[in-house]
């Protein structure tokens, strides 16, 4: 018997079999009879099925065990080489220590992973690469002895270097482990070496085998010189360390650190250390230059591929990934090799030239200087290389680093290849200049550009909370860099900022403790302000369809403006604000306007996010700030205009919350202010600001209905109610009032457009006002006037579209007007426009949102028909996508919610109660999800409309609506 009526109905025997299998996997031997007794009604089936299940499980488990014990083994010999042991493993394959029998010498044998060597494309490349590497002869490049293939395995032999990798050196320094291990010795050498020193590897027993200890004890410099190089290397067990897995390294380190404890090494990093690092990297750069000259790229430069031998010589190994620059055919575009953490951004994208090696060597330098990887989360780079490839300031981690060395590092790992050293030679040259205390060639100023570029190309900072920190650090470091000679104090701030990396509060604290030398700080502040402005503009403009105005004259547009913003943007801006508030307080320059503008921007974003209460509060703060400035600067456009803009925002904000009298209060305040500011009020900007205010209140007045009944509680499918209902007297009064406001706005705008016929902003707002005029006229049943206004609005936007054929924003406005005329043909045209612009601009959700709105309108025009349902369904697909994509934008969720409700009603009306139930269920689920989301935001946020406050009320309203229909 199998029934399908309940939603989670599984076959009982399937559930039994599942439990039975689970017990077998847990090592039990469950009795089949036990189940037969427990479930007598299925006893027969259980007795027949479970034995087979047991067999399958046994076979399956058997395989699991086999797999555990049968890892691919180590070959005993390959060609001329006798494998001694494995000394390391990497992405490309395994490295063995081996003896080359014909020459009786120890070599390092790299066997390429079958995964990589498995196909002809890779094999051909491997050969070429090995050939390329074998052709390199340089004192800092590990020589290749030969390549071969045996047992189906590709391998190549190279000189066994008696040394450790820089990875190990870094690990040792990081773990304060400079004791008697090879890498510890090397680390100590790095710390202390003077030019004539060699690394004296100690002969302690910390190495892994007694053989190692023995061979080590045999080793000292003189003996080694006396013997043949090969034998010495044979005796050495140093290279194993070079490729020891980190876990083992750490074990070793901790074991030894018991013997010897020193104060934190990272605090001890001295000038000498940095100089040693610089000269080591300079030599590596020299080797790279040579290789590049031979048309060979390394493509996988990283600390693990740089060996430091006992002479202190640096060796680049593993040219296995290198390719000849002229033999590119085998390397498919888009194919990614190498190690993500050290890869240049363009290399991640599958391209790149010799500058990728410079980048990677730069990151290696960074890591040696700071003992921290420059890129903390390499995996993140796959998705978004640009954002994640922003490199921190090395001095923010390790303040002792000489500034010039930092500059060199940052130049080497600049994001864009053209900003880096163009040749390894130049990189080397700058390092030598640093070592000789000559001025370096790299310029610091590029950092400012970097910041600005960075802010430009981060349209979705939102997803990373850490971006806030990164930005602060960047700004702080910007300050730190810009004024290095003149301004110590500011740099200290920068450094204090950077040190308190994880704690914003600590940062501001630190700031207050620092005395500012005021006059000199200004320059830097101006720079920082510029950057701030870029960033806020970037964020704020993302919210509105037309960045020329932030008005909210249209219901749908208001709903969707801000879709691409998120809570993280607010957090980001708020933390930036803290930063500016402090500067504003402590600096001689009057930064209060900037700080107030910052507040305003935060409020704007909160407003677009639908966080009405927080936005209200932020606007108040901004208003207080501006008003206090106004006392000293009456009638100044830079103060008055922002105040007017804030009044406009607050007005819509109150309107959304259904507080009409407060909204009108804002208008009154604005008028009052204009009266006190005669100059501004006659200026074009002043009149334009007033026009926008009027336009706002005009369009919102009618929408409010009565107080405490915002849109959400209106019957969700108003158009299904019998049309032509007579208007109530107070409705007429309100519409008349709105008409007055809009008429005033229109008059102002006409004036303005006459004065400046080329001003696009004026025309756009005029077009919108005409649109409203049409809507108002229609409500007053004055159809000829409505048609005239609509025509003019359409004409206006059409001519804008003609003069700006590439502007999707004007097309959007045109479509908006077209869709609001109530004419089906125009709606269809609007739909076509929306389809066009949203195809061209898939990144702008507003376009798709308007398309959905138009589809809904078309649906309503189609009446209660299947066609209508189709339209609604298509709209819902779009809205669902938007709601999923911009999960923290309440407006999209709300539109979807409404559409689902509409659909449900329509389906009910069309006689599909099942479908109707399903749609209603989805809408309720959405509501629930939204509620959860809201709860999870710890602040008491509210969506644009009191979405969930009154689920029950709303359901009652629905019921009433339904009742009234029947």
């Amino acid at each position: 018997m199998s029934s399908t009526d309940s939603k989670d109905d599984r076959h009982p025997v399937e559930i039994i079999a599942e439990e039975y299998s689970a017990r077998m996997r847990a090592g039990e031997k469950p009795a089949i009879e036990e189940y037969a007794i427990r479930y007598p009604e299925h006893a027969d089936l259980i007795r027949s099925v479970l034995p087979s299940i047991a067999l399958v499980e046994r076979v399956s488990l058997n395989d699991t065990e086999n797999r555990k014990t049968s890892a691919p083994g180590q070959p005993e010999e390959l060609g001329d080489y006798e494998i001694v042991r494995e000394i390391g493993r990497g992405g490309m394959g395994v490295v063995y220590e081996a003896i080359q029998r014909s020459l009786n010498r120890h070599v390092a044998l790299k066997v390429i992973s079958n995964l990589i060597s498995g196909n002809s494309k890779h094999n051909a490349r491997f050969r070429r690469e090995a050939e390329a590497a074998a052709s390199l002869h340089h004192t800092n490049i590990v020589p290749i002895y030969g390549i071969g293939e045996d047992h189906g395995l590709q391998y190549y032999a190279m000189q066994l270097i008696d040394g450790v990798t820089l990875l190990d050196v870094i690990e040792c320094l990081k773990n304060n482990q400079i004791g008697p291990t090879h890498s510890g010795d090397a680390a100590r050498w790095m710390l202390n070496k003077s030019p004539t020193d060699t690394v004296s590897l100690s002969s302690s027993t910390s190495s892994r085998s007694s053989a190692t200890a023995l061979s080590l004890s045999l080793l000292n410099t003189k003996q080694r010189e006396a013997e043949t190089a090969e034998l010495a290397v044979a005796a050495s067990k140093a290279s194993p360390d070079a490729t020891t897995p980190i876990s083992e390294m750490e074990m070793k380190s901790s074991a030894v650190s018991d013997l010897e404890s020193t104060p934190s090494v990272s605090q001890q990093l001295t000038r000498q250390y940095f100089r040693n690092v610089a000269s080591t990297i300079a030599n590596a750069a020299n080797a790279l230059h040579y290789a590049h000259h031979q048309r060979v790229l390394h493509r996988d430069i990283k600390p693990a591929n740089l060996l430091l031998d006992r002479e202190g010589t640096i060796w680049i190994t593993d040219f296995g990934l290198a390719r000849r620059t002229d033999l590119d055919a085998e390397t498919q575009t888009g194919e990614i090799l190498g190690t993500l953490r050290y890869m240049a951004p363009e290399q991640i994208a599958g391209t790149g030239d010799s500058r990728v090696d410079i980048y990677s060597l730069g990151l290696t330098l960074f890591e040696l200087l700071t003992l921290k990887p420059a890129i903390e989360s390499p995996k993140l780079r796959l998705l978004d290389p640009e954002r994640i490839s922003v490199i921190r300031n090395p001095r923010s981690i390790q303040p002792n680093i000489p500034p010039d060395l930092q500059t060199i590092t940052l130049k080497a790992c600049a994001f864009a290849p053209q900003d880096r050293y163009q040749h390894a030679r130049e990189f080397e040259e700058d390092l030598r200049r640093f070592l000789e205390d000559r001025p370096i060639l790299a310029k610091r100023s590029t950092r400012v550009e970097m910041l600005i570029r960075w802010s430009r190309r981060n349209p979705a900072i939102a997803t990373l909370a850490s971006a806030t920190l990164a930005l602060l650090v960047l700004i702080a470091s910007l300050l730190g860099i810009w004024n290095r000679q003149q301004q110590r104090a500011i740099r200290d701030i920068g450094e204090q900022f950077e040190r308190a990396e994880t704690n914003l509060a600590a940062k501001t604290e630190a700031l207050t403790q620092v005395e500012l030398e005021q006059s000199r700080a200004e320059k830097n502040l101006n720079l920082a302000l510029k950057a701030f402005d870029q960033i806020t503009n970037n964020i704020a403009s993302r919210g509105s369809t037309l960045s020329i105005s932030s008005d909210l004259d249209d219901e749908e547009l208001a709903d969707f403006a801000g879709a691409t913003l998120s809570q993280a943007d607010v957090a980001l801006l708020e933390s930036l604000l803290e930063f500016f508030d402090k500067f504003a307080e402590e600096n001689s320059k009057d930064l209060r306007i900037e700080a107030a503008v910052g507040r305003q921007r935060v409020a704007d974003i909160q407003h677009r996010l639908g966080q009405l209460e927080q936005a209200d509060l932020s606007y108040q703060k901004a208003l207080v700030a501006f008003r206090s400035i106004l006392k000293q600067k009456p009638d100044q456009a830079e103060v008055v205009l922002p105040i007017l803009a804030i009044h406009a925002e607050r007005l819509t904000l109150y309107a959304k919350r259904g507080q009409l009298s407060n909204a009108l209060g804002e208008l009154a305040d604005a008028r009052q202010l204009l009266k006190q500011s005669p100059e501004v009020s006659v200026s074009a900007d002043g009149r334009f600001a007033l026009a926008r205010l009027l336009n706002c209140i005009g369009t919102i007045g009618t929408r409010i209905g009565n107080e405490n009944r915002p849109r959400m509680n209106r019957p969700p499918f108003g158009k299904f109610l019998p049309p032509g209902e007579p208007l109530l007297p107070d409705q007429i009064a309100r519409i008349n009032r709105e008409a007055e406001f809009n008429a005033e706005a229109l008059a102002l705008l006409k004036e303005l457009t006459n004065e400046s016929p080329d001003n696009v902003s004026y025309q756009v707002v005029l077009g919108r006002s005409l649109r409203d005029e049409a809507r108002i006229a229609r409500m007053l049943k004055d159809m000829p006037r409505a048609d005239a206004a609509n025509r003019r609005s359409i004409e206006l936007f059409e001519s804008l579209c003609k003069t700006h054929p590439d502007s999707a924003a004007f097309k959007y406005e045109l479509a908006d007007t077209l869709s609001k005329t109530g004419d089906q043909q125009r709606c269809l045209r609007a739909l076509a426009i929306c389809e066009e612009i949203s195809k061209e601009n898939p990144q702008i959700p507003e376009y798709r949102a308007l398309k959905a709105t138009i589809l809904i309108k078309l649906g309503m025009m189609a009446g209660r028909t299947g066609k209508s349902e189709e339209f609604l369904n298509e709209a819902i697909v779009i809205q669902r996508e938007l709601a999923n994509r911009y999960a923290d934008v309440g407006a999209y969720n709300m539109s979807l919610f409404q559409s689902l409700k509409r659909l449900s009603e329509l389906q009910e009306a069309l006689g599909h109660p099942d479908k109707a139930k399903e749609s209603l269920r989805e809408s309720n689920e959405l509501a629930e999800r939204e509620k959860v989301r809201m709860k999870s935001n710890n602040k008491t946020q509210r969506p644009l409309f009191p979405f969930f406050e009154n689920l029950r009320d709303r359901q009652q309203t629905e019921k009433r609506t339904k009742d009234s229909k029947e």
Partner: protein
Amino acid sequence: MDNSQESSNADERALLTQGGQKALADLLALHREKLERIVAFRIAPFLRSRIDPADVLQEAYFEISRRIDEYINGAPVSFFVWVRQRTIQTLIDIHRNHTREKRDPLREMSLASYPYGHTTSISIAQFLLADITSPSQAAVREEETQQLQSALESMNETDREVIAMRHFEHLNNQQVAEVLEISPTAASNRYVRAAAKLSEILNHLPSRRPSS
């Protein structure tokens, strides 16, 4: 599909959309063991001794990170089922690379039917044949294995897949349902039917072969 599953899919998507790569890494770590198992099971015999399943996974993860948007914007399957698909696809690509080059006898094998063709039985066969450690174990297991193999081979493809997914890949009913694009109820019934068929076939096989 039941509601809880649907909403947990949405959760995964939301998590991936908002949490980015960190969330992706966390989710993948959650499924790692199962995925390794799947790779080990599906990998072709001739590659078995040569390629570490971990390497295949690494390769698959790479693809997954690159294509995560396809998942986020794609059909509403659960994350695991999607990842499994991508992993198997990666494996197919690796197979393809190897067979094309090596002129392996197995290259005649119908690649088009991967992963749901006779690969299941090949997979089962290969790990039974390979690496049997002790001779005494071997005798018993070989016998069982051969039985199972021939039984599975005589089943239809979907039934075979259902058994394989449940017992070799350790997928649960819900996941099987998603892979086969049927309801959990149907998947559950399908499983019982397949298991019953398997039992029937096993019972009718020529009596146990004497172990040689």
